[in-house]
């Protein structure tokens, strides 16, 4: 049995050696490169992100046509609500005529800051993983966001975050937001690879 004082510091010493050894290792080994390449080919890094983006809380405001969707069944927004030229609704039917900066606790009408539709160029409905990924990254379509800005948008934007706390009987995005951000960052760190087209 190791004497008591040494036993107490031993784990730290071992951890310190491990850190020092890790620092001496190259950042990527042939094994990790091979693994990353496999991930790139399979689009594994993007797959969990695509699953989140397809959630009704995200997809309802990313239509490819001019109709926002509502509900977990993603039906077209009642009252013939349409996109409008600035993605904020048509005359008299502006998003903010009803959707304010927080959920309305009396009526149940959802709200969050800057409630609006994503531009049609960022419509996601019906896209496969490959198309979704390339669309997301296309700076001509996404408002000039590079990958870091995309990650930040999905990490911090209050309207995005609403999807995790939508209130009422709306289903929140099922995966915890922190786990989603971890996956986003892993995807970004891996070079933001898109799955192949087929």
């Amino acid at each position, binding site marked *: 049995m190791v004497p008591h004082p040494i036993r107490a510091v031993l784990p730290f010493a071992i951890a310190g050696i491990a850190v020092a050894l890790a620092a001496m290792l190259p950042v990527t080994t042939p094994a990790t490169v091979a693994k990353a390449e496999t991930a790139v080919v399979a689009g594994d890094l993007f797959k969990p992100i695509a699953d989140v983006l397809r959630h009704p809380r995200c997809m309802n405001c990313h239509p490819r046509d001019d109709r926002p969707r509502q509900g977990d069944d993603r039906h077209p927004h009642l009252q*013939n609500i349409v996109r409008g030229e600035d993605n904020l609704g048509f005359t*008299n*039917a502006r998003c903010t005529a009803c959707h304010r900066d927080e959920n309305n606790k009396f009526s149940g*009408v959802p709200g969050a800051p800057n409630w609006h539709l994503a531009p049609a160029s960022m419509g996601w409905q019906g896209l496969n993983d490959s198309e979704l990924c390339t669309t997301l990254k296309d700076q001509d379509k996404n408002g000039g966001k590079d990958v870091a800005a995309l990650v930040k948008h999905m990490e911090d934007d209050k309207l995005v975050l609403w999807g995790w706390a939508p209130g009422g009987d709306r289903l929140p995005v099922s995966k915890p937001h922190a786990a989603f951000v971890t996956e986003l960052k892993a995807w970004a760190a891996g070079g933001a690879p898109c799955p192949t087209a087929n």
Partner: protein
Amino acid sequence: MPTTFTLNGKKTTIDADPETPLLWVIRDDLKLTGTKFGCGAALCGACTVHLDGEAVRSCQIQARDVEGRDVTTIEGVTGNVAAAVRAAWIKLDVAQCGYCQSGQVMAAVGLLSQISKPTDQDIDKAMDGNICRCSTYHRIRAAIHEASTTLPG
């Protein structure tokens, strides 16, 4: 909590919980009962007023949202568009029971203020959220077209 805003051109201060729906402020506190309650859930349009000139549902706007802003109700809507809408509404005898009509008029003024010669499609998009239990929709559409003929393009 005191909230100061302009109501129908007059500076107005109310003392209300910041989350009070504007509709209650208008009807209960300020006794302007032309604006109607239909659903309280953004579904009918009976409560339509203008906030900074844009049609909104006063049942969804909270007192704190109107601080320093301009609210117009059916009692205070003026100008050439409002006059054209009023004349067309009377000429075509649009109202039946009348309950939805202050919301319809506020929505029609909102539409014609921005699109003076609306197509049927524009009318559909701008007015679909204003429900009429008496189904006066055909007269509302005709009256909007009628009003538009008197407005400059």
